């Protein structure tokens, strides 16, 4: 295993043109994710955390700075950096199986090879028996399972997850978190996980990067030294509660700062 980080962001800045104005989404972000590490990026909505993920995926390019994966500059999107989207973004005209095997099929893998692998992964995410269903026939949680399965089947070097459980109801969300923990125990993927849910970040990740409001910067990185394998019960442990308070204080501080800045800007204009 190489000693280079799986993902590395160096002084990354991203601006968007918004009409005449230019909006800075992400400012001077430095982040390194090691192999087999699970890192969560936590921040309020609109802080540029999805932009961060899009740059790692290769969907967007940084305005300045460098984004590296396995030591090389990220160019086009690649199956080595699989993405799980918030809206699962499944192909509605393909069955569950069709969606799951889209990647290997597109990459020209022989059917004999990917069929068995698909069956195994579909079973792992709990979708056995639903192979021929269409996305419209599935619940939100099941669709997201398909989203995870079609990413895992490509055996990616890193898994990029953009608030994958953000639009699910609370119960389904905790089920999916448990599923992800179980999947992670068997694959030990490198994961970059974007979320605005404090508890979710602490439950899943080895490290949590707390972001500031726009422009997004990494305010502080917190190590989550809770032993693995973890289960959903971890969320009520004293250790996690202590971390929750710490993160909560950081976020409060951040939102107050943002509010003061807004007030100052309003007074000046």
């Amino acid at each position: 295993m190489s000693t280079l980080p799986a993902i590395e962001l160096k002084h990354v800045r991203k601006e968007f043109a918004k009409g005449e104005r230019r909006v800075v989404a992400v400012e001077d972000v430095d982040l390194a994710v090691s192999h087999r590490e699970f890192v969560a990026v936590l921040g309020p909505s609109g802080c540029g955390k999805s932009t961060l993920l899009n740059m790692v995926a290769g969907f967007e390019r940084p305005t300045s700075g460098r984004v590296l994966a396995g030591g090389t500059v990220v160019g086009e999107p690649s199956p080595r950096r699989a993405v799980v989207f918030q809206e699962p973004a499944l192909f509605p005209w393909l069955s569950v199986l069709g969606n799951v095997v889209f990647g290997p099929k597109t990459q020209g893998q022989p059917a004999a090879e990917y069929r068995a692998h698909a069956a195994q992964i579909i079973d792992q995410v709990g979708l056995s028996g639903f192979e021929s269903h269409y996305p419209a026939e599935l619940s939100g949680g099941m669709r997201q399972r398909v989203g995870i399965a079609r990413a895992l089947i490509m055996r990616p070097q890193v898994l990029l997850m953009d608030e994958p459980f953000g639009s699910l109801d609370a119960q389904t969300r905790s089920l999916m978190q448990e599923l992800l923990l179980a999947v992670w125990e068997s694959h030990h993927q490198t994961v970059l996980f974007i979320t605005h849910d404090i508890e979710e970040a602490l439950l899943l990740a080895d490290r949590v990067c707390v972001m500031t409001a726009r422009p997004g910067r990494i305010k502080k990185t917190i190590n989550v030294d809770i032993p693995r394998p973890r289960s959903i019960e971890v969320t009520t442990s004293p250790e996690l509660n202590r971390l929750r308070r710490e993160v909560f204080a950081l976020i409060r501080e951040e939102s107050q700062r943002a509010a003061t800045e807004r007030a100052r800007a309003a007074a000046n204009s």
Partner: protein
Amino acid sequence: MPALPRVPWFLLLPAAFVALWHFAVAERWVVEGIIPAPAQVLDSWRTWIFGSTKAMLSPYAGTWLDNVAYSTRRVLQGFGIAAAVAIPLGLMIGWNRLVARLVDPSIQLVRPVPITAWLPFAIAVFGIYDASALFLIGLGAFFPIVVNATHGVRDTNLLLLRAARMMGARPVTVLAKVVFPSALPSIFTGLRLGIGVAWTAVIVAEMIAVKSGLGYVLWDAYYVGRMDICVATMFSVGILGFVSDRVILVASRLLLRWRTLEALE
């Protein structure tokens, strides 16, 4: 809303219309001898289709099927050519910015010219032949298909494109496996609009630019004062247009089963 009783409600308006028509003729609310009664139209239509045992009553007797075949063949050929050109072109315009800049303005410029305005040009270039009719039909059907295909491509969900690229799809694969199926519902909308224009165009073309088919019969019957045949022709074209639209609709339902599921959600 309480469930309506299962009655063929759609027959109510046509029945009322035929009744009104019948009494308008029978009670002489309309000028006599110009508008034929429904029964007379039906009778002439029957003779037109099946021929007549009476001696030489009508020059139209027994020619219906031939003329239907002429018109239908022209529609299918013209429509087929239009679809074969318009679908790939629409995909390219929606997909590639250079193609869009190159081609789209010209299409938008030519599109507002009514198909009827092309008639003299078509006859001058292609003569009183089939080619004239095919040109008009193809041109008329081309625009709705190309515009809707373009629109369908541009409506493709950005996340689906990203998902496909992330799974290793190259541009050609993205176009074939993501953009095309995603645009297919819109393409079918274009095809349905296109077949409608094709029937309009075939009648116009046959009235003036060719000497066979339902449009030719329509104009010919008008000249010799056979309004019963005119009306029977109108019904015939209506039925053919309706049937061809249904065929496309059924094909789209079969191909787009996933969309029906989405609608049920």
